[in-house]
């Protein structure tokens, strides 16, 4: 049996997504900037995708800028707004559990003379709203907070955050990294007070190399790529038509029967958590109720190296992610797990399980049974003192 439980890493592409992508490569392969019919055909795919996304988010089509994925969307949001607004101030606020495409972007901006405040989080990965309120200053130009944390599924109170920021300084831009949230929550940027929103296609059964940044009209932003002036000059480069068409299709499908899907996710999650709690020496990081994301469960297994458990599960056809790589390999220890202050003996021992609409109850059951057996075997051979 195969149980792919690594859907926060990437997801399987939908058949309808694959179909439309093939069409844009095989028959409607024109360059959307070309003046002839072939170009118009290609451009129509982009319009269609743009409309889909605009409808889902209840925004204007022209507020969507397609990118090469989540990383580029986050980078554009960060660096693009920082550069465009630096006269107003050079202070930025973020949390200590953001994705590297935010954190490393912040590091770059710090080197360029910007000041960054990193908000701490509690044991469930939630930022402290009081701390946020304190942090917003006159010279703050941007706050960037992730909607759903990719490692433990913590869900930040986005609307409250927006309200707090805007109340203290209405000129501050609010960017939300929604890469793990899009398709799991209904997100309406205009109603929620979000100025910029990053989304990636391959987390919602779309293709890798697809994504977009929602930029509220009126937001000042500089491009980070220069070229032929496509997408109003904000993101030059011939549009990746197959990826954009696929992304549009995936977004459309993911929000159909939405409530049923989310209810299904939470049933899977509850089932899984119930099973995990029965296994000795386990610890679930973050919240386990419906205040946490529907598709992510992060579990620490006492005395087990996460890499070893990962490979042992792999042998049984179960695919997951390690929360944090071997500390002995000096690969960075996860900022999120450190941020929520996971105890040392669970730090090297955390596995992330993440579900999709294709995950079945049988897979969950199989995974729980396999964990039970595998842990027993592995625990026989832990390091002798």
């Amino acid at each position, binding site marked *: 049996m195969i149980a792919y439980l690594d859907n926060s890493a990437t997801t399987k592409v939908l058949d309808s997504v694959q179909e439309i992508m093939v069409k844009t490569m095989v028959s409607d392969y024109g360059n959307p900037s070309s003046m002839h019919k072939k170009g118009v055909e290609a451009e129509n795919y982009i319009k269609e995708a743009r409309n889909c996304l605009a409808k889902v988010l209840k925004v204007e089509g022209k507020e969507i800028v397609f990118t090469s994925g989540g990383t580029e969307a986050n980078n554009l949001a960060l660096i693009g707004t920082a550069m465009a607004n630096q006269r107003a101030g050079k202070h930025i606020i973020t949390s200590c559990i953001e994705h590297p495409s935010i954190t490393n972007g912040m590091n770059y901006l710090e080197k360029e003379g910007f000041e960054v405040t990193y908000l701490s989080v509690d044991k469930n990965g939630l930022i402290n709203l009081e701390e946020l309120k304190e942090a917003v200053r006159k010279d703050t130009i941007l706050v960037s907070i992730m909607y759903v944390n990719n490692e433990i599924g913590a869900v930040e109170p986005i609307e409250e955050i927006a309200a707090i920021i805007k109340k203290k300084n209405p000129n501050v831009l609010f960017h939300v990294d929604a890469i793990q949230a899009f398709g799991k929550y209904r997100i309406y940027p205009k109603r929620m007070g979000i100025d910029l929103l990053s989304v990636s296609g391959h987390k919602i059964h779309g293709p890798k190399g697809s994504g977009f940044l929602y930029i509220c009209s009126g937001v000042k932003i500089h491009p980070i790529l220069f070229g032929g002036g496509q997408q109003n000059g904000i993101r030059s480069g011939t549009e990746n038509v197959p990826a954009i068409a696929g992304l549009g299709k995936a977004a459309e499908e993911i929000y159909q029967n939405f409530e049923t899907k989310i209810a299904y996710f939470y049933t899977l999650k509850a089932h899984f958590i119930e099973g995990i709690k029965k296994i000795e020496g386990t610890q679930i990081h973050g919240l386990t109720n419906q205040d946490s994301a529907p598709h992510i469960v992060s579990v620490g297994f006492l005395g087990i*190296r996460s*890499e*070893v*458990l*990962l*490979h*042992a*599960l*792999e*042998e049984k056809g179960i695919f997951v992610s390690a929360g944090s790589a*071997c500390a*002995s*390999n*000096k*690969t960075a220890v996860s900022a999120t797990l450190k941020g929520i202050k996971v105890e040392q003996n669970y730090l090297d021992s955390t596995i992330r399980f993440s579900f999709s609409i294709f995950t079945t109850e049988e897979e969950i059951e199989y995974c729980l049974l396999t964990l039970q057996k595998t842990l027993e075997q592995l625990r026989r*051979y*832990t*390091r*002798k003192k």
Partner: protein
Amino acid sequence: MLFKAFLIKYGEIGIKGKNRYLFEDALVRQIGFALKEVEGAFSISKEQGRIYIEADGEYDYEETIAALKRVFGIVGICPMIQIEDKGFENLAEEVVNYIKQIYPENQLTFKVHARRARKNFPMDSMTINKELGDRILKAFPMMRVDVHQPELNIYVEIRKQIHIYSETIPGCKGMPIGTNGKGMLLLSGGIDSPVAGWMVAKRGVEIEATYFHAPPYTSERAKQKVIDLATLVARYAGPIKLHIVNFTDIQLYIYDQCPHEELTIIMRRYMMRIAERIAVESGALGLITGESIGQVASQTMQSLFATNEVCTMPVFRPVIGFDKLEIVDLALKIQTYETSIQPFEDCCTIFVAKHPVTKPNLKLIKRSEEKLVEKIDEMIETAISTREIVICK
């Protein structure tokens, strides 16, 4: 490209007695293998104690040189031009032309080395040297003859055609693969073992390799890394047959039954036993390891003595006297270093004792191994019979 041909110099193999043709044939074969990867078509010929490579049409010069530099047995690579014999006047013109093109500065001291292999050429070697020197001096007034330490040596060989060359690009020496039997390399993912394999291959030994895989304690990527390393060594040594042995059960069994601080030594003894069994099956005549005295606990003299004791085959340890940095230098040279230092090696550190024995007592080790009698033979059989074989090239 001016050069359409290469003269291949081979030192050591030239002096082998009656076997000489075997060495030359092997070298021709290895050059053929190496050039298969290069853009262009080539013919390789053996003629009066020389090996010539001729490009048939367009080819990539840089790639050709790089490929030839990886062929063991080549001492020097001389890019040359070949001309038809149209008399001395024509030859002199060609030589002057050659200097004009290759050394546009033409302010060098020089010496002409003529060699008349085809004796019906009307002038003898000494005369050719003198006359050509004269022509060169006339054509390039800035050049001077220096017969002792010339900056430029111009070789002119009168054969069926006439060959002109002046540069020797050093090759990697050694002896052609396939002239010295076969060895079984114990290949880990580290820095040392690929270097050890390369060094033995350099002496003309065909290489096979054994890798001990311990899933889930070592990952698929760790295995891929070893395959990548074998493939890098294969650029010199030719295709390497890699035997991937699943060692997990044996490792866990030893871990269960034996004192923890002896684990590494006992494990290594079983690795040697298994490698030797596969070596015998493959017709290899020796084992090769990347051990270097004192580098780690399992490589002290006492430990080497203890691991060596299980083998009847000779065990070659070509880097035995090298410091780590010296091994690193070689790894950089043969371009295995980058791959070797990739980090996904061992999550099997749980098996490594905090304080492993550094001076194992063979008697004690043997006594510990007695605790394994019940199952170990069968486990070894299983490990050997279920091994995976990958051809790395």
